[in-house]
């Protein structure tokens, strides 16, 4: 092998960084900031996850605020790139307005996340699955307004192609519904999405967004050849969120390495691992 790194050293240093639009990252795990019981726990989990990108939502400021604490006081804005989402929007118009509001806040904070958005245009409150038509329309408009748009999508390859065609900086197919913890339900669709999106453009970033339940789901997504994984609930709602944050970091790295290392082909029958010659003689009967 030509690998020059020492036996115990992870060959990740040789890995190319993840590029999305104008952004470049070493970590391929993006994590959300929702559902944590305290901001302090969130802070610890963000650090343990090794993520460089964290997602936030845009919501009404409470006019009368008892606690008066902002999540922004618990996030190192010089360390993390904030990815504002349009979660909770059910029309293209709402999502576009929310994207503009998020950009306004992050511009004021001089965070590099001001030029991008995680677009969610939902079709239904029960499944939280995206409305593909409104999502394409909103993507088109936001691209015109100069946003780098990372688009939460279904795992439908045709929708994925449409989103890329209207300028999505990254298509982010759901493994399964948001917060469902079902993992990747249709790996074949994810494979086809990647084949289409990366055709003639191998560095086009595809990120699995939503549905992750445990670390093996993350490794599996990375092994499929995805460029990254975005998750929130799997860490925040785990019994031990901090331990799960570590697990997710390791799973991302493990899956990436495994994907690059090239797995063995699947075979129906066994192939011995130990030499088949030189075995001792059977006793005479």
């Amino acid at each position, binding site marked *: 092998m030509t690998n020059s790194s020492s036996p115990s050293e992870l060959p990740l240093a040789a890995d190319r960084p993840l590029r999305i639009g104008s952004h470049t990252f070493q970590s391929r795990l993006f994590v959300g900031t929702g559902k944590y019981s305290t901001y302090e726990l969130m802070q610890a989990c963000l650090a343990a996850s090794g993520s460089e990108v964290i997602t936030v939502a845009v919501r*009404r400021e409470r006019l009368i605020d008892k606690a008066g604490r902002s999540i922004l006081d618990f996030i190192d804005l010089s360390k993390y790139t904030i990815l504002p989402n349009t979660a909770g929007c059910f029309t293209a118009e709402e999502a576009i307005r929310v994207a503009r509001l998020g950009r306004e806040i992050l511009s004021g904070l001089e965070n590099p996340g001001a030029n991008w958005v995680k677009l969610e245009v939902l079709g239904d409150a029960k499944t939280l699955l995206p409305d593909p038509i409104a999502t394409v329309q909103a993507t088109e408009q936001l691209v015109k307004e100069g946003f780098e748009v990372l688009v939460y999508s279904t795992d439908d390859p045709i929708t994925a192609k449409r989103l890329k065609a209207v300028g999505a900086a990254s298509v982010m197919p759901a493994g399964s519904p948001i917060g469902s913890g079902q993992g990747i339900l249709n790996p074949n669709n994810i494979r086809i999405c990647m084949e289409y999106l990366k055709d003639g453009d191998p560095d086009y970033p595809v990120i699995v967004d939503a549905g992750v339940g445990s670390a093996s789901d993350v490794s599996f997504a990375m092994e499929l050849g995805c460029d990254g994984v975005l998750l929130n609930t799997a860490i925040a709602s785990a019994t031990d969120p901090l331990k799960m944050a570590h697990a997710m970091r390791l799973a991302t790295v493990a899956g990436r390495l495994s994907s690059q290392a090239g797995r063995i082909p699947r075979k129906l029958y066994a192939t011995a691992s130990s030499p088949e010659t030189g075995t001792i003689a059977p006793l005479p009967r």
Partner: protein
Amino acid sequence: MQIQVNGEAIEVEPGRSIAKLLVQLQKQARYLAVERNGLLVPRSRHGEVALVEGDAIEIVTLVGGG
């Protein structure tokens, strides 16, 4: 006059600017973005945009999300 702020009726002096509305509400603009009747009002214009009776104002911030 009355305006709507985040869905609540609020009394303000006629012609009051968005910057002064934020002061009245004891809000720091740093973590906020303001929309007036569905259109973003950039921070640089908070001082010059005068509110009108019946305006619908949205004041938003960033919260935890996925």
